[in-house]
C-alpha cells in the first residue's frame, strides 16, 4: 500500500499506509492501525498521535 496523507481542517493529519513515525526527538513510533491521526496543534498529551486536544479550550500559559 502506498502511503497517503490527508490534512483535516482544524484537526489532525491522517496518514494511511505508514509503518512508523519518527517524532521531532528522533524517537520512532510503530504504526499499529491502518489509519493514524498525527497531532498538528502540538497540544496532544500522546504525541505524535492526535488525542483530540485541539477541541479543548486553549489554556493560558
Amino acid at each position, binding site marked *: 500500500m502506498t502511503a497517503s496523507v490527508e490534512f483535516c481542517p482544524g484537526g489532525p493529519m491522517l496518514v494511511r499506509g505508514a509503518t512508523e513515525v519518527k517524532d521531532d526527538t528522533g524517537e520512532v513510533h510503530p504504526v499499529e492501525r*491502518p489509519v493514524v491521526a498525527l497531532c498538528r496543534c502540538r497540544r496532544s498529551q500522546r504525541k505524535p498521535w492526535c488525542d*483530540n486536544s485541539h477541541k479543548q479550550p486553549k489554556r493560558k500559559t
Partner: protein
Amino acid sequence: MSSRHALQGQLSPSRGVHGKPGRGARVSNRLPEPCGTLSAAVARSLTTEGGSRPAPRPSDVRTVDDPLADRDFQLALWMLYELHYRGFEEVPDVLEWDPLLLAARAALEHRFEEAVRALAEPGADPGVLAELTRGAASEPPADVADEVVRRLVDMTRGGAEGGAAAYLAEHATAEQFVSYLRQRAVYHLRESDPQSFVLPRIGGPAKVALAELQYDEYGAGRPDRLHQQIFARGLEALGLTTDLTTYVDEAEAETLASVNTMSLFALNRRLRGAALGHLAAFEATSSLPCAKVADGARRLGLPEEVVDYYEEHVEADAVHEQLAIRSICGAVVAEDPRLAPDVVMGAAACLAVDGLAADVLVARWRDEPIDAGVAS
C-alpha cells in the same frame, strides 16, 4: 487498591442474577428475564413451541408513555433486535424472520422512532433540518455535504457523556466505576456490530471509509485487538463475567435505549443516514471522555486491561471522528443529498439518548454516600 478484593467478592463471575445460581462466565445468549407485559410477551413468543405465539400487540405498545425510560419496552425491543445479531440459545434461528415477530418489532419501532426523533429534534434544530431538506433538492450536493460536515463538527464540540467521564475521572468509587462498566458492557460486548449492517446499504467513498473504520474496530487484522475483546478482557481482569445477558438483566431502560437506537438506525435501510450520523457523533465525542475514564481507572488502581480499553479509544477515536464526519457522512451526503437531514438527526439522537443514559448513572452516583456504593 484496598477495595479490590471486596469488589471481586461482590461481583464474582459465578454470581447469578435475580438470586438464581450463576451459569458461569462463558455462557452466553440466554434470554434475559422479562420485566413486564411487553418483554414477557416477546419471551413467550420466542419460546412457545408450535401453536400461536402471542407477540405484543400494537394496542399494548400504544399504552407506553415514555418508551425511552420504559425498561419493559426497551427490553422487548432489545430481544427482538438480538435475533438479528447472535440470537438466543433456546430460540430457533428461523424466528429471525418470523412475520409475527417482525410485526411486533415494527409496532415497537414505530413508537420508539417517534420518541427518539422528539428527543433529538432540539439538538438537530428543526430549522436546520428544514433547510437541509430544501437544500438537498436545490443546491449542489457538495455544498449540502459541506453544510452537514459543519453541523456535525459544531454539534459534537461538547460531548454526549462528558458528565459521566468527568465524574469517573475524579470522584467515582471503584464500585461506581464497575457499575459504569456493567452498564456499558451491553454495548461494548457487541461494539460496532450495528454499523456493519450499513455497509451493504451504501456505496462509493463512504462505503470504503466505513469499511476502513470498522476494520480498525474489529482489530485491524489482529484478533487480540478486536475492541469487543479488549473490553471483555477488562471485565475478566476484574473477575466479572463476559456473559452479555447478565448485563442486559441489570441494564437501565436508558442503557437499552442507547443500543436500541443504534439497531433501529442500522437495521432499517431507510434510516441509513441516521445510522451514519449517529456513528459520527459517537466517535466525535469519545476521544476526550475516554482519556478521562482511563484516568479514573488509573486513579482507582483498576487492572491495566481496563485502562487499555479506554486508552485504545483515545487514539482510535481521534482517527474515527475524522473518518466518520468527513469521509463517511460527508461522502454519503455528497452521493445522496436527501440523506442530509437524517444524518444530522442521527447525530442529535446519539447525543441526546446517550446523554440521557449517562445522566441516569451520574444522578445515581451523586445520590450515593461515598462509601456505600454497591454495584447493582
